[in-house]
């Protein structure tokens, strides 16, 4: 069912110039015009625009570095982040071959921060994904069906909204117990209302568009309307929200770990390192400094990227 541009332009190359279009199309032959449209599409592609937007590109680079670190970092560090060595306790950065120094148990801080990136990304992206999938589905159904179902779902979402985000996640963690999968689940569930709201609002707008009505007039089913036409048209909003949401999820994970409810020690996580750094801010500030910096940079990166994507996808929202 897909209509690939490349295939056709190959066809047109084989058959030489496409003459029939020339008469109707004006100045250009069909092939030339096709080439021009391709060029224009390329120039206006989201990727190109993103690269032109400086801050968005900076955000993209940061995010890429963090993700790269999360995936490959551990194999590059070559040190066990959990190996204790009391000789190295609170070692200063650079001492004893440890770039960022040692922590309260003499573990290599650099290795811990790198391993922490893996946890951070896993938890935040995982939480975002769960929230997005469930939230988008609820939003689509709620917005499309309307009526009682919509009222009911949205009141439930309102109820969840009324809880402070952290409190909600804490509550869920207390019920579910600790552990990484439960942290992801908790963050995911706490994220659901945000997606549901955004998607519902967009659906209410899109479903009244003329093109949706015209598909309905062809006799299309609700499933087709929702997934083939409405979803693709609200998706850009979801992507923007999701990118910004990852930044929020990283902070949430850090806060949960900081509060001692998230990732269980000895697994390295930025929030956990930050917490242990809190006890020794006077004597060994590097603990809190580097874990805090890691959080700051990553969150900044995702925010810049999210804002950039929004500007690219929806220039009207730019202020």
């Amino acid at each position, binding site marked *: *069912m897909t209509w690939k541009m490349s295939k056709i332009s190959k066809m047109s190359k084989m058959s030489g110039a496409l003459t029939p*279009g020339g008469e109707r199309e004006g100045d250009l032959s069909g092939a030339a015009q096709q080439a021009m449209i391709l060029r224009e599409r390329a120039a206006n592609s989201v990727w190109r625009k993103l690269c032109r937007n400086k801050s968005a590109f900076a955000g993209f680079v940061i995010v890429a570095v963090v993700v790269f670190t999360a995936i490959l970092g551990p194999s590059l560090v070559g040190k066990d982040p959990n190996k204790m060595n009391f000789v190295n306790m609170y070692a200063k950065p650079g001492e004893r071959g440890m770039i960022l120094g040692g922590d309260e148990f003499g573990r290599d801080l650099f290795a811990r921060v790198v391993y922490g990136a893996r946890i951070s990304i896993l938890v935040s992206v995982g939480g975002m994904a769960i929230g997005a999938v469930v939230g988008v589905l609820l939003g689509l159904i709620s917005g499309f069906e309307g009526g009682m179902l919509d009222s009911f779902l949205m009141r439930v979402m309102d109820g969840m909204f009324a809880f402070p985000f952290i409190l909600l996640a804490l509550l869920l963690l207390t019920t579910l117990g600790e552990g990484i999968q439960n942290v992801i689940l908790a963050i995911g569930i706490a994220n659901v209302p945000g997606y549901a709201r955004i998607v519902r609002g967009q659906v209410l707008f899109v479903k009244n568009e003329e*093109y949706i009505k015209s598909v309905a007039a062809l*006799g299309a089913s609700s499933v087709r309307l929702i997934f083939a036409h409405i979803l693709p048209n609200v998706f850009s909003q979801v992507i923007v929200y999701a990118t910004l949401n990852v930044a929020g999820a990283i902070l949430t994970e850090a806060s949960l770990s900081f509060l001692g409810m998230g990732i269980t020690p000895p697994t390295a996580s930025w929030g956990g390192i930050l917490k242990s750094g809190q006890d020794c801010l006077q004597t060994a500030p590097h603990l809190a400094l580097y874990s805090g910096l890691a959080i700051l940079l990553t969150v900044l990166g995702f925010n810049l990227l999210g804002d950039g994507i929004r500007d690219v996808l929806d220039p009207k929202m730019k202020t």
Partner: protein
Amino acid sequence: MPEVETAEPMLRVERLTKTFRIKSAALFAPPMELKAVNDVSFQVREGETLGIIGESGCGKSTLGKTLLRLIEPTSGRIFYRNRSLTELSRGEMKALRKELNIVSQDPYSSLDPRKTAGYLIEEPMTIHGIGTKKERKERVTELLNMVGLDYYHATRYPHEFSGGQRQRLNIARALAMNLKLIVCDEPVSALDVSVQAQVVNLLCDLKKKLKLTYIFISHDLSVVKYISDRIAIMYLGKIVELGDEAEIYAAPLHPYTEALFSAIPPESPFEEKRKIRLTGEVPSPMNLPRGCAFSTRCPRCEPRCREEVPELTGVGHEVACFLAPVQP
């Protein structure tokens, strides 16, 4: 309603009414009723084009959508080839959508911006499960050619087409199924004159080639007159005059029709218009005048017009006005 034809018409509409309920501004006041289509009856014969003219807010678009049950009518009946559309289930109606469709007003908003032309034209066939994938692709090319586009246009997105081309796409899409009756809702209003002529010609060609029946809704009198066999003039949800295109133009019977014709801009700088200028604008359909809907603006209004609602009467050339000359 007097029967003119002995043969059963393709579409018969009886006392069709669509009332919208509008929440009133006051908190506890009852909702107000807006009669967008008010007791409308007419027939469309197979192969003819019925033009529906009216100003904005007269309910012509609502009428078009109600005919295909894109908006559910409040009361009244619609018969398509002797089947009562108003009584069909959703599934039966879906099957019938292969034969009935609408080409809508704005070529800019009526196509999904994230789908290619090929997908959009193929979609009606996918929905109704017509043909294999390969056959459908071939049919798309055929349809593109039929409306004056080329096969390579299939890969383009709607925003990569001009307004006229988009309207062609819309038409190709409607024709993808085995269509019999098309409601054209202002299909050329958003287009430039030269492009408008292209689309009007295309519609006329297709009608002849495929034996289509059109209901052509527009506010542009000259286009409607050109394309239609019969014309219905609507004012505030009601048909005020209905008859043969040439007859109505030569001798309009309703004062509103007369005013409408005299308001058309001149066709040359030498033309001196006979001027019948209506004062004011169309009243809100939420509080209709008590008698004839046109009585508030009618230059010939009599006391009776403010009290009673005139019915559409006459044979062949019907008119809803107390003051119209009596038909033989």
